[in-house]
């Protein structure tokens, strides 16, 4: 097997993962990108979505992140996430409820600033629901 990348997932509250893996797929702001050992150094923003950790040919871990930053070097991939939850731990009903509530909030929003805030939250909630649904179909 080829070299591994040191994958680190950190949220402000704790260090969620720190392990060598074969490949991670990160939802970058301009499209998902996979990181293998020897990747060109880069810094990217992360949109709400799923980080997939690959080991060999299998996906061993799927984590939902609500945006953040990723720093990639040849040997390391560090993701600073604002909020990170393993996909298996997301409560589908709750996520859908949240999405519904936010949609109502959006209708109520009066100022542009308010609307923008709600829209940002909405994107996160939507991504969360998508994450659960895709997870359900994969199993």
């Amino acid at each position: 097997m080829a070299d591994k990348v040191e994958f680190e997932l950190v949220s402000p509250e704790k260090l969620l993962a720190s392990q060598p893996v074969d490949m991670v797929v990160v939802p970058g702001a301009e499209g998902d990108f996979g990181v293998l050992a020897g990747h060109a150094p880069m810094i990217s923003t992360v949109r709400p979505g799923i980080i997939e950790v690959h080991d060999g040919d299998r996906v061993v871990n799927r984590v939902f992140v609500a945006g953040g930053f990723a720093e990639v070097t040849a040997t390391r991939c560090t993701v600073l996430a604002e909020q990170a939850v393993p996909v298996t731990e997301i409560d589908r009903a709750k996520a859908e409820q949240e999405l519904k509530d936010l949609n109502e909030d959006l209708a109520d929003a009066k100022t542009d600033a308010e609307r923008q805030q709600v829209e940002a939250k909405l994107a996160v909630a939507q991504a969360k629901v998508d994450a659960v649904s895709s997870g359900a179909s994969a199993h």
Partner: protein
Amino acid sequence: MPSLKDLKNRIASVQSTRKITSAMKMVAASKLRRAQEQAEAARPFAERMGRMLASLAANQQGGGDGPKLMTGTGSDQVHLLVVMTADRGLCGAFNSSIVREARRQIQRLQAEGKTVKVLTVGRKGRDQLRRDYAPLLVHSFEEVGRRRLSFADADAIAAKVLEMYDAGEYDVASIVFNRFKSAISQIVTVQQIVPFAVPETAGEAASAEAGPVYEFEPDEEQILAELLPRNLAIQVYRALLENAASEQGARMTAMDNATRNAGDMISKLTITYNRTRQAYITKELIEIISGAEAV
């Protein structure tokens, strides 16, 4: 001369006070451990964030003007002080030392002819500062992280600070908080958060050691524009955590002292109680004997 009954009551009341203070001490000790763990857990994120910022800043150098959060507004007329205290007292000099430092800063800045605005976090700070500087208080947060401090709390404070900055309400912001050194020693710290200052040495070290030139996706400026507000929230979060740990440390020490003092007081009162009791017995005996002699 207090009567026997009075003494007995006092001893009982000091004893129950001692029970309370020793319980509070133990609660503070366990909360301190939790706060310390949380502070520890938050460290990796702050570290990585700092590293990322340093490499970004290293790339930015010579690139002309960066985002406003980094370069500042070009003036330093209006200062915002974010004063972080606890919601509750009974923790020694914890709150008053922060407030004292905040007062000193306010006086210094005002002497320099600057305008000062104050944002308080925690009820104690607000109450104490309101006495002298009520017109300066712009906003206050209370009951922050009552159960457990979460990043969302810090985010809310940072959002307020940013909102004011975007509205041009101040030029420079600093936070006043207690840095946790150990359970018995906390250091009042004033830290500038806006505009963000890249530590010179860190920047140099990063550029010397990191070497690789990063690619940016999307472009550098956009990342920086998103990273800086995040960084602000992190700084606030870190300060809140340090403050929480310091508060529990200060309370633990204060309650330890109080418990010890109560113990001393009980033994003194017990001695007085015994002496008084003996005096009473002697007096009664004398009365009986002299009564018998008179017959």
